[in-house]
């Protein structure tokens, strides 16, 4: 092989590659995408060898296609309810706009973390925002770490007030207008589900995880507020004291709520 007369430095080569591969695709409607050669940096095009009639644009295009395909399919897999609601043809241009604002980091499991709040910022249909909130919560619950669970040996300290309860990071509280949980497992599995949004509901839901199984429970609004306060870092006893002071009628429900949280493994040692 003949040494090149003016090779690019490795850093310059990788910058040119990054700029060429990460150039956004252009959506033409009806699922069509335009990939013009002018998106590729000329010095990179010149650096690539021609072989078997395949030029630099086709070869770089293979990488560019894979890059975008991976990002789009990651978000499609993470937001099945959104795809069900509006269809992938309408979903993909939204993903394109989102990725321009929030490029991927190292971990693709968090690629869609800001998608629901971004959708709210751009004022899309609130139903779509809600569907995406459910999908994002599902993903967070699945990937959340597990904190130590209180056991029988902690009961005495809890009763005496020497120990307080925290909430497991997997527990999410969702105030929903539609019954998304009734269709999400089937939608995610690709099973047939009637088109459009699920039936109306007006409930506070708690999404949790017991071992490998995700649990979904409708809860009373007061309990939802308590759990949300615990998600922000407050302890069970501390939040409960304030809640009972404001509304003494809930005092009789506290035992049932504690039992439900124990059954669903919502609690963690603080």
């Amino acid at each position, binding site marked *: *092989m003949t040494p090149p007369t003016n090779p690019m430095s490795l850093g310059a080569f990788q910058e040119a*590659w990054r700029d060429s591969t990460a150039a956004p695709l252009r959506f033409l409607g009806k699922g069509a995408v335009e990939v013009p050669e002018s998106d590729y940096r000329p010095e990179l095009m010149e650096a690539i060898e021609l*072989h078997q009639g395949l030029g630099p644009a086709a*070869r*770089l295009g293979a990488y560019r296609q894979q890059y975008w395909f991976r990002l789009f399919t990651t978000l499609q897999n993470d937001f099945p309810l959104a795809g069900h609601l509006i269809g992938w043809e309408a979903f993909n241009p939204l993903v394109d706009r989102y990725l321009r604002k929030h490029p991927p980091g*190292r971990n693709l499991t968090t690629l869609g973390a800001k998608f629901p709040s971004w959708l709210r910022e751009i004022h899309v249909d609130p139903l779509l925002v809600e569907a995406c909130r459910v999908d994002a919560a599902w993903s967070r619950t699945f990937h959340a770490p597990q904190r130590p669970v209180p056991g029988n040996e902690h009961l005495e300290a809890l009763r005496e007030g020497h120990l307080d309860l925290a909430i497991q990071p997997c527990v999410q509280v969702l105030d929903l207008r539609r019954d998304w949980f009734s269709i999400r497992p089937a939608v995610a599995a690709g099973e047939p589900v009637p088109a459009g949004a699920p039936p109306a509901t007006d409930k506070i839901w708690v999404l949790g995880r017991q071992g490998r199984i995700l649990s979904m429970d409708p809860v009373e609004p007061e309990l939802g507020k308590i759990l949300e306060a615990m998600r922000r870092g407050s302890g069970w006893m501390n939040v409960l004291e304030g809640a009972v002071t404001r509304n003494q009628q809930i005092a009789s429900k506290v035992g049932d709520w504690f039992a439900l949280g124990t059954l669903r493994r919502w609690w963690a040692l603080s």
Partner: protein
Amino acid sequence: MNTTTHRTLDRNAVGVGLRPVHMDQALAGPPLVDWFEVIVENYLGTGPIPMTNLGRAAALVPVSLHGVSLDLQGTDPLDLDHVRAVDALAKEVGAVCFSDHLCWTRNGSWHSHDLLPTPFTEEIAEHTAERARLVQQNLSVPFGIENLSSYAAFRDSTMTEWDFYAKVAKDAGIWTMVDINNIYVSATNHGFDPVRYLESIDWDRVLYVHLAGHTVRPDGLRIDTHDAPVCPEVWDLYAKAWALGGPFPTLIEWDDQFPTWERLVEEAHAARSHRS
């Protein structure tokens, strides 16, 4: 280089890349393959569900860790926190080794989520070997580098891919993990002789071998998709590799268009019929 620790896998072993889609079946009964390889990024900083599964897998058979984001050929500082996290995981599950690719994966804040090639030059080989040596210094298990499948070759290259690969491994004092499907894909895409590549390999340095399926685009470009059975041409190349450097552990990767667990196991055991 430690010459004993890498022999913890039987040299005739057959294994599979264990993916979440097959996890329940793989962990349900007696082991049907000799070892599992797992993608390390799926188990770093994750919740207890994947970690519990990995622990159960490691209790069944040996486990090797395989990475896709080391950025060995990158120009940003090497992420030693990532390497240390891999090492901690390797210790936790008693992994036999760790491997990642001879490629770059990020530039500044941009992450490619793909395995990207570079030109093959002495200067880049030295840069890569230096980083690979640093990785091994921060690992308590053998570190192997995998050859890439690529869709672009570069006018700036002054070496063949196989000379480049050998130089990096030798200069860094590390192991190799040879992907025979990748050799075939790159050979076809760039017009070199894959057997010449196999003949250049120092087989004493090989931790194990990867096999997988790939896709041929309408324009003839072969893409390393891991979504199909191993093709006959790659099995032929595997047989030649076995004749040149066998025995070596052999692993099937399958990452899309997943087959049943039974079919995947069958593909792994098919390797035995291509050894002579």
